[in-house]
């Protein structure tokens, strides 16, 4: 009888310790999850800002200015244009 009781006490203690550790683990993991979520929010914000930057650099007036002034590009006149429709490509 005493032996059984001692065994039960040991099992109980083990269970209790297990609970404590798993709770601790859960909180730690949750903390990590929180951090990762915060990071994903941050990255989302950064993505928006980068998109904004990309759009700002790609403003057509700027692209056109660089193309014509720095790269000396110009629109070819209509005589030298050949427009290929999607149907002709399929052939």
């Amino acid at each position, binding site marked *: 009888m005493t032996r059984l009781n001692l065994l039960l006490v040991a099992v109980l203690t083990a269970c209790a310790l297990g609970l404590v550790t798993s709770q601790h683990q*859960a*909180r730690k993991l*949750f*903390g990590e999850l*929180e951090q990762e979520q915060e990071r994903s929010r941050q990255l*989302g*914000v950064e993505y*928006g*800002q980068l*998109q*904004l930057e*990309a*759009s*700002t650099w*790609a*403003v*057509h*007036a700027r692209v*056109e200015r660089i193309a014509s002034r720095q790269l000396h590009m110009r*629109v070819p*006149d*209509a*005589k030298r*244009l050949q*427009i290929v*429709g999607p149907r002709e490509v399929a052939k």
Partner: protein
Amino acid sequence: MNFAASPVLALTLPIWRSRLLLYVFIACFALLLGRAVYLQGLNNDFLQAKGESRYSRVIEIPANRGRILDRNGEALAISTPVKSIWAIPGEVHTSERQLARLAALLEMSPREIEKRLSDTGGDFVFLKRQIPPEVAERVAGLHIPGLFQNREYRRYYPSGEVTAHVLGFTGADDIGQEGVELAFQDGLAGKPGSRRVIKDRLGQTVEDVESIKAAQDGRDLALALDARIQSLAFSQLKAAVAQHQAKAGAVVVLDVDTGELLALANFPTYNPNNRNKLSGAQLRNRALTDTFEPGSTLKPFTVALALEGGRVRPDSVIQIAPGSLSIGAATIHDAHLERSLTVAQVIQKSSNVGAAKIALSLSAESMWEMFRDVGFGAAPGLGFPGEAGGKLRPYRSWRPIEQATMSYGHGISVSLVQLARAYSVFARDGELVPLSLLRVDIPPAARRVMAPKTAGAVRAMLEMAVNRSGTAPRAQIMGYRVAGKTGTAHKQENGVYATEKYVSSFVGFAPASHPRVVIAVMIDEPSAGRYYGGTVAAPLFAQVMAGALRVLDVPPDGPMQPIELPPEGEEVKESV
């Protein structure tokens, strides 16, 4: 000594005293037990809440406002988080140095900050809103008590003034105030959510208790707008307004097949990212919310009606001599020397007398119906805030002279968008398509307003108007067949026509063999000497159209010959 015999010990107390004490103790314990049961079991909400407030917090989950994209997915408006700095005035204590550094960071004067902190009796005051997060971090680094930060959103518009009038803008609270931002506020706005969590003593979240409300980000909005065409239309418009020293101008580009608004540019404009000094003139979306008397651009509708009813044919001859027409006390003048013109030539050379004569052969009711059918007198239904419907008076009140002048666009007012849409009827064989600000993937059902044959005949006339002997040779584009009509109208001021103020316009489409794009152009008060639609508005139309056709990969349908222009100053003048 016999202690046992001590008289002190022999003293006996009455038994009831100990009993009484016992009962008093029992009663006290019962009271405590009862209170404990009451607090723990029966009425535990209050303490539970108090307890929870030590560790559980409701935190807000922010939601983003949706982006606005052009038809190809290019971002036109994006929200990013910023910070606002607020203070509880009574609790702020700063040293001189702190104040100076705060003022420098916020780009305010120290005196202004002090004033803000002192003049309100309340316990909340914004010091500055919408500052970049980096600056906010440095403000937090000053560790000033009583100073707090709030997360807010700020809307940025990368294309700035180019798309200002279409997109509109949002206010400090990220709520749409103008344009598309206002029109589609419900869909764009996100719904912030909230959740309950447990925080430890260090303020770190350790457990998620429940999600009270899920955050919902705003939906992205794909506009019909094509950023390339928009940018082109805007830059050409800006140049044209400067060249002709005009007061204002507007360009509208429509897709013929889908009714999508590919571009809408206004000048003057404003920068939506910096709205410190805004005037009403800058804010006005002339193409949508302003109406004007369109002038000769309305002639094709009168002619179409006459053709539809079988009253005339394109080659029917109309007497123009002696170049004027008296109706009652009023006289309509024409700038042409021809004695007679065919119906097609009335359009080509823009004859007022010819148009008036055709109009007078029609009933007022049928003219009114035609104007109403092509969308005049009613808002175009884009859902844009403040879109104008123009003025189309009921036909019962028309006098003959008014019916005559309406045939060439006076006594009726329309917006530029309405005009462009009405021309899409000629471009797509007599059907009127609903307009859309948003990208359309399935073309909407159109409503037939005239026979395909009529629309085709008018289209041929409009093509003539653009050739060398028409009023708008400068609207030609190499490689494409163009059709369109000029308009030059006196401006009305206080109910009287101003002699020296004009509105020059041009509406047309291309390629004429299978129209893809309708463009309407309006220049308000050109004052550099030239004011005819054919010299002011037509070249702008040609530049924008050529660019739009190139962007949309439309194959050429015309001869690849250099454009022939009549010698300077010898163009056919339209009647004003």
